[in-house]
């Protein structure tokens, strides 16, 4: 479901008007639906230097039913079949000189990209470089991919994944995510992988089959969408929200075949009650999505303690307390558990009137980074997702000017949908995402805020 402007801009009359006036031209994004092929067209894989990931990428994509082309044919037939995605293996970069071949390859391949196409650059982390020249070349990928993302049209996105030595097995899950419709609103991002034992044999249509997933704040908005996507991917969802939201919480649970748990996550015994519930009803938990959050906006100088404290309690302290209790419990957190915490663009860019909210959401980013090594030890991960401008009931109440500006100042010229956040969280929850740990993934269409 696109917003009114996107619908208008894609209509016959709207196309003419927006082109003539030079208005933003938001595309209708390719979004994931069950059974959809990974990509709507072939992928071309190019290299900058002697990369080591080409074979891995080729195998993963062929297994997913994608036609893989080599850049030789791409060069020779620039007017050939339109491409679903362009992947550059830049793990062979030794210095800035090697970037010329990256330019060569990308310039010709991107011209052939379909709407909602994907550009994905794979590189080694600059911090592991052997020389300043190599570090420079690797770091250059950062500027390169962010700029490509800003140049792409028609709902296409560009992202980069840093794959350190030994983390090759971690690549399959992010590769599939970034090329698929699940990452529709993730643009201009750089994701760092770590080495991990990655389970295989996942059902591509039901990657969360048999998993028990807790989603807090599930009664409405983004939380309801997360619950729905997790259930679609095969998880049994324990939908949690405050007792007062119980009516819509029950409706969500019934809609997705999950269960409703009315619980104030800031209550002193909340973690214990949640853990007891999970143990009694499900024997444990595989995924916890800390989504519940509140805003109590006011300029800092006018903000009372109640506003400050309630936002901190819900958005940050409850995530800390519940996660700590799950770790301390010993057996309720199943093997290969996944924790996903909802942060916010405000936590990265700051926002006027949201000192409390931005502080809490930035805190979440620090929390997942600090906890990641401890989770890795048990084959688990903890990550954050930072939504940008997402169209919800809450944004529908904003003044129209603020809302329109807020939703257009990103590379896709539109606000994201709750499902875009939900898809990212569901991906991080997959067993195959073992190599993504301690990261904060922005779902913001490459917002200009905090970029």
């Amino acid at each position, binding site marked *: 479901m696109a917003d009114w402007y996107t619908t208008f801009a894609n209509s016959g009359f709207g196309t003419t008007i927006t082109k003539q006036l030079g208005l933003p031209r938001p595309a209708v994004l390719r979004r994931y639906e069950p059974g959809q092929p990974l990509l709507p067209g072939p992928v071309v894989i190019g290299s900058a230097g002697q990369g080591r990931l080409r074979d891995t990428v080729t195998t993963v994509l062929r297994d997913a039913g994608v036609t893989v082309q080599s850049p030789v044919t791409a060069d020779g037939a620039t007017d050939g079949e339109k491409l679903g995605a362009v992947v550059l293996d830049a793990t062979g970069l030794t210095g800035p000189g090697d970037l010329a071949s990256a330019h060569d390859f990308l310039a010709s391949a991107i011209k052939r990209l379909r709407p909602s196409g994907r550009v994905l650059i794979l590189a080694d982390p600059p911090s592991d470089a052997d020389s300043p020249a190599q570090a420079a070349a690797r770091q250059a990928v950062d500027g390169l991919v962010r700029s490509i993302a800003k140049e792409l049209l028609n709902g296409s996105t560009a992202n980069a994944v840093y794959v350190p030595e030994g983390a090759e097995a971690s690549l399959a899950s992010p590769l599939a995510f970034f090329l698929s419709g699940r990452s529709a609103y993730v643009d201009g991002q750089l994701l760092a992988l770590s080495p991990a034992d990655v389970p295989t044999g996942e059902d591509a249509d039901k990657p969360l089959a048999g998993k028990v997933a807790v989603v807090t704040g599930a009664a409405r908005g983004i939380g309801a969408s997360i619950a729905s996507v997790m259930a679609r991917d095969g998880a*049994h969802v324990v939908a949690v929200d405050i*007792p*007062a*939201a*119980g*009516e819509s*919480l*029950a*409706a969500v*649970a*019934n809609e997705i*075949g*999950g*269960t*409703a*748990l*009315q*619980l*104030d996550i800031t*209550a002193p*015994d909340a973690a214990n*009650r949640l853990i007891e519930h999970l143990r*009694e*009803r*499900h*024997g444990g938990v595989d995924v916890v999505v800390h989504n519940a959050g509140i805003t109590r906006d006011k300029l800092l100088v006018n903000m009372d303690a109640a506003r400050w404290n309630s936002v901190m309690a819900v958005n940050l302290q409850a995530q800390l307390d519940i996660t700590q209790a799950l770790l301390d419990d010993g057996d309720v957190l199943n093997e290969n558990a996944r924790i996903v915490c909802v942060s916010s663009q405000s936590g990265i860019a700051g926002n006027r009137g949201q000192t409390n909210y931005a502080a809490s959401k930035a805190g979440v980013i620090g929390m997942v980074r600090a906890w990641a090594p401890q989770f890795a030890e048990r084959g688990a991960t903890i990550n954050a997702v930072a939504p940008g401008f997402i169209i919800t009931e809450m944004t529908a109440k904003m003044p129209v000017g603020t809302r329109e500006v807020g939703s257009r100042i990103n590379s896709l010229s539109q606000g994201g949908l709750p499902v875009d956040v939900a898809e990212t969280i569901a991906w991080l929850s997959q067993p195959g995402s073992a190599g993504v740990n301690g990261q904060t993934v922005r779902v913001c269409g490459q917002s200009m805020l905090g970029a």
Partner: protein
Amino acid sequence: MASNSKPATRKAAIVGGNRIPFARSNSTYAQASNQDMLTATLDGLVARFGLQGKEVGEVVAGAVLKHARDFNLTRESVLGSKLAPSTPAYDVQQACGTGLEAAILVANKIALGQIESGIAGGVDTTSDAPLAVSDDLRRVLISLNNAKSVQDRLKAIARIRPGMIAPEIPRNSEPRTGLAMGEHAQLTAHEWEIGREEQDELTVRSHSNMAAAYDQGFFDDLVTPFLGLSRDQNLRPDSSLEKLAKLKPVFDKALPEGAEATMTAGNSTPLTDGASAVLLASDEWAAEQGLPVLAHLVDAQTAAVDYVHGGEGLLMAPVYAVPRMLARNGLSLQDFDFYEIHEAFASTVLATMKAWEDPAYCKEKLGLDAPLGSIDRSKLNVHGSSLAAGHPFAATGGRIVASLAKTLHQAGPGKRGLISICAAGGQGVVAILES
């Protein structure tokens, strides 16, 4: 196996419950029908226990005030809910005992192995209550419907008189005495010398107990909000003796000359709208579904008294039912960890306990050698009862069964609870739960 042996039985487990917050009459739920409320309550139960699309053995529920269109209320509610449409259902009605009687019926079928799971419930609205036309007008309308010719129709219409038009509004009164239930209760209170202050004290305790239970999250897995209401509307956490003392006595109509009326709008339950449901099952079914067993329904008993000519109070039947059930189970009144005595009126609870303590009454009326004795008040209605929550007639039993089962579960295994509910028509329904 001996031919005269009883069929093997098992104790039905109480898995959990759900209710919507109770609303005062003609308020938040004024536009909600019994079917709306019962369906929402079933859906809340489905969401809590993951029963979407599942078939339970039977759904049994009822309403005291019922529209003619609701002849199949429970089945229609099931069809509107997320339960499997193949779930059978039937209606029961035993006045204020409906909810508990429904639970007993479900439990008995589970005990006999006829079903593995079931839902018992009840619903009532005094806002969306049925109105009937007068008997005279009804007769005219029926003959009008049967009339074959225009002439016959006109003749039938000509019989209508202005006085026939006034509808018959359902009254909360006993058909055989014409007295309101409160007036009956006031007579009993007078007879047992139940004072105003002790009634008000019991009322304050009900409100404060229930408010504390809400604050502690006790009702988080027992109640699902409905139409924006998330707590019982009648609940007054700040209720106090001083405030209650200011209320004027009502229900004094039938009292003898000079007798002091002690019952007020505060220490009596108000007319209320609401619904409740309880999930019962065999232990095996609960285990298969990964669902908890809070308690078992051990035994139950009904009794009735002759309040018309027999000189007994309208709401005294549970006083008779309890000793019969205790004797059958070899228990004394003191062998319980929790007591749930339905607070139709504060005076009813107090008269019930006073009767059990009275040696002469226990001997003459109940045929007992010794009085049942007193109960520890700190074990009575520990999470509040009808004075605080309100009392949508058929929904009260389900509220009490689920709350008591949870209370027993929290207290640990082997705890025992007694439920006592009085009902119109001089009836009473009582039961024992055990964790």
